[in-house]
């Protein structure tokens, strides 16, 4: 009899839904059906059962082909690459668990690497704004239970976070929002007529690249001053109408996405969005939230903040300190200046996401991909190490876009012999210790069965 696994977390987008139900085959090995997930989440689970899954690491040969090697050999190769390099970069982590992010911290410190995550090319500008202006936010349940005005600025959840509006922000009936969508005013601010814009009560089609001006116009109006007849391509009357709705909220919410962080103004757009939220808190209750992309891209920001004090762009090459200076220690900038002499791509696809010039520089040096699947990065790597799919074959903590930790389950076993990201990093760490003839230092509370405790050293 196939069995149903309930309350399963979805390893796709930043909405990190944890209500999936998965029908698993009698022998517990194959995923048959996926319930409650969106189309993309559905595919993540089915893909894990694909017969094409890689089961062993592959090393690039002199003739350009890949040849299977053992995990021990892959661990040894990775440890030696990290030790040899002066400034190795370990980048990615949008799609793995926090246990792996914690384990890699030890590896990066020991080998003197730069640690960075996908925020570097995504919500990095949001971090810069948060450093300057703070982050008045809330959990998604607050939106569900209280919000009567919801603004989506430069984001399109109907495509990027398919269940966001139904689980959290627009449709659900919450404690103080029993009428669901009918009780909420929805404003979309986007230069395109997206599916989200079509759903909204008001769509302000901001002129592309002029978001800052529109934010500024809202702040000006809310403070009782006049604005020109048209700002950022929007008529004054439309701005006044939207500002009036925002002001009269009991609980208002501003969600923003790449449309703010990756258009003209970047961090300044987010900065003024936060200032607008602060202004609105003098007349109503308001929160703001970044629409984080991947199911655990908020994770490295959390784990590395408690380990190193910084969420991203962490340079550990000094050995005694962690150092963060986006622009100097950010992945793209390091790669474009050809400062990186070894690269590990983990839980993302730098091959697809980085500018081609950055990839060309990185490709001159050892290039390792750690990912369950074949992707663009894996196809240009020297070494590809397949790992278990987190959320499907490996449990762990992930941070939803609102920084709520969700404890994801394991649904099926990984293909025989395939290890997790965390196990891989712990083995690389131990190998580095062997090669450098040093004692491994574990934080004993980590409490791995496999982790020796340094008691009485």
């Amino acid at each position: 009899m196939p069995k149903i696994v309930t309350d399963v977390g979805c390893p796709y987008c930043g909405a990190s839904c944890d209500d999936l139900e998965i029908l698993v085959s009698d022998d517990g090995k194959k995923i048959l059906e996926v319930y409650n997930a969106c189309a993309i989440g559905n595919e993540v689970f089915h893909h894990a059962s694909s017969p094409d899954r890689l089961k062993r690491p592959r090393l690039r040969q002199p003739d350009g082909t890949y040849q299977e090697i053992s995990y021990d050999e892959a661990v040894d190769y990775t440890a030696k690459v990290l030790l040899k390099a002066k400034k190795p970069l370990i980048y990615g982590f949008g799609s793995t668990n926090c246990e792996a992010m914690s384990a890699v911290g030890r590896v990066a410190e020991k080998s003197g690497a730069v640690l960075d995550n996908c925020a570097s090319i995504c919500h990095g500008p949001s971090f810069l704004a948060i450093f300057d202006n703070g982050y008045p936010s809330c959990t998604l349940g607050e939106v569900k239970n209280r919000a009567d005005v919801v603004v989506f600025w430069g984001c399109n959840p109907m495509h990027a976070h398919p269940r966001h509006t139904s689980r959290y922000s627009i449709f659900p009936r919450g404690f103080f929002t029993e009428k669901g969508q009918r009780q909420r005013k929805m404003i979309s601010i986007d230069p395109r007529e997206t599916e989200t814009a079509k759903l909204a009560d008001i769509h302000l089609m901001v002129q592309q690249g002029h978001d800052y001006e529109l934010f500024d116009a809202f702040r000006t109006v809310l403070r009782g001053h006049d604005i020109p007849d048209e700002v950022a391509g929007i008529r004054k009357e439309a701005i006044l109408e939207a500002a009036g709705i925002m002001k009269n909220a009991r609980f208002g919410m501003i969600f923003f996405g790449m449309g703010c962080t990756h258009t003209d103004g970047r961090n300044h757009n987010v900065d003024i969005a936060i200032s607008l939220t602060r202004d609105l808190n003098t007349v109503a209750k308001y929160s703001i939230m970044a629409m984080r992309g991947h199911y655990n891209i908020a994770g490295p920001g959390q784990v590395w903040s408690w380990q190193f004090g910084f969420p991203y762009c962490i340079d550990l090459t000094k050995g005694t300190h962690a150092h963060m200076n986006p622009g100097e220690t950010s992945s793209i900038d390091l790669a474009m200046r050809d400062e990186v002499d070894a690269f590990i791509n983990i839980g993302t696809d730098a091959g697809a996401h980085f500018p081609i010039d950055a990839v060309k520089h990185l490709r001159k040096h050892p290039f390792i991909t750690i990912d369950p699947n074949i992707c663009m990065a894996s196809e240009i790597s020297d070494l590809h190490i397949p790992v278990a799919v987190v959320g499907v074959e490996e449990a762990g903590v992930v941070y939803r876009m609102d920084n709520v930790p969700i404890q994801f389950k394991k649904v099926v076993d990984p293909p025989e012999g395939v290890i997790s990201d965390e196990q891989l990093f712990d083995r690389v760490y131990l190998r580095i210790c062997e090669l450098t003839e040093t004692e491994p230092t574990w934080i004993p509370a980590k409490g791995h069965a496999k982790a020796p405790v340094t008691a009485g050293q």
Partner: protein
Amino acid sequence: MAEILVKNGYVIDPAQKIDGDVADVAIRDDKIVESVSSGARVIDARGKVVMAGALDVHAHVAGPKVNVGRLFRPEDKLFKSPEAQPNYRVEMGFSVPSTFKTGYDYARMGYAFVMEAAMPPLHSPHVHEEIHDTPIIDQAALPVFANNWFVLEYLKKGEIENSAAYVAWLIRATKGYGIKLVNPGGTEAWGWGLNCLKLDDPVPFFDVTPAEIITGLMKTNEYLGLPHSIHIHQNSLGDPGNYTVTLDSLKLAKGMKAKNKFGRTQVMHSTHLQFHSYGGDSWANFESKAKDVMNYVNQQKNITIDLGCVTLDETTTMTADGPFEHHLNALNHLKWANTDVELETAAGVVPYIYDKDIKVCGIQWAIGLELGLFTKDCMRTFITTDHPNAGPFFRYPRVIKWLMSQKAREATLETFKHRDKVIDATEIHGIDRELTLYEIAQMTRAGPAKALGLAGMYGSLAPGMDANVAVFNLDYKKMPSNPEKIEQAFQRALWFIKSGEIVVKDGEITSHGNKRTLWVNAKVKENPQVVRDIHEKFIKDYTVNLDNYPVRDYLAPNPFVIDVDVEA
């Protein structure tokens, strides 16, 4: 079998009424014993002070708001982080140190146990993830309850039994330790941008008052017989004139009796009292009411307090008192982070500079110390800085210096730009009391251990206790005339033995030790209504499924579970 003999030190152990006797402390494995064999490793403590490992009853060291403080303040790291010790993890951060630095610095000061003071239940997996990345020290965490929808609904109807069943379930689910109250009712009101500043301000919609919440949770706590009492951050924190609200809430404990098997005698722990002992009605006539508050506390044996001393540093304020942080931000206009947590609580984070040249900061500094100097019972008065709110925890040695030395207090007062105004608004200038090492040991060892219901494990050097032993570079018979030496001695222990293992030598970390997470397993008989309520709220209101809510065992890998059987 590992044996250690700490020989010939001046032992200070208030739990055994030992004050400076020259004696040996014998350790076998992780316990203190009567004697050890001749093969034991000997630590020569001649001419040095020997105390049990200390306990911090209230600090914000792990969890979401602490991590917001780290994340959004890169400037807290820049030029303010020491070099890593070779072969140990990097130590980043000043007011909000990394988990590694937190564990190392507490150990360097001889601390064995630290209570994380506010755990938002929904974020409890995060709290435990950070705890398991914090080396050496034992830790526990207090989940927050005073704005939790279940609790508000049960207490509105006066249903203590249901409240107790829910509280027991939540403490178990979050692997928590006890009942924390933060701005009762006010934080829920903050969901609408409002607050409850007085004890009879009804909570919007829930229509229950802060006084009812405090009393109800106090009854719940004693119904369950938990090791710790309710631990309360009162309403109207930080407001001029708030001492009347403080006294009103302390009076709610009148006549209540502690019921537990852990030796705890208080029914209410009132935390960071400095922030709640303010007179005046504006910042212009702001003044100390420490004496009035302590006069009451001194009479009421069923109340314990901690100080929340201002250390005059640039720090990061963080609290589940969301409306307070918004209010503070309107005063200093620095960056502001806020996280409202569905059905449960909220949190705010704002950087703050306690500038010795600002009159109000000087008065706050004086109030914290006055509370410690006006106390008549050091077993009920504990040293804290409400880390990092009034100052970072690694300033405890400085607070001890001020408490032990009038000269040190006067020297600090002399540096204030508004010295005379501070003197006018406080009583600090006239106080000549200097606390003794014995009293300091009561305030950091025996006292907090008893208040937490942990006096059988921590806070004493009696045989059978956990082997947490600190040796400080102080001569009991010849205390230094220079108070700076006191601070230096407590900043870096000569030796610290934690759970029988030497973790600090000459102020340097020598091992990652044997860290544990303490949590309370309160067993009540099944309550079908509460079970149904929990299921219903998770289906209707929460955005996380019930099955994924309780902290999984592997996240607290070295647990020390305290079982509490509730007879009903």
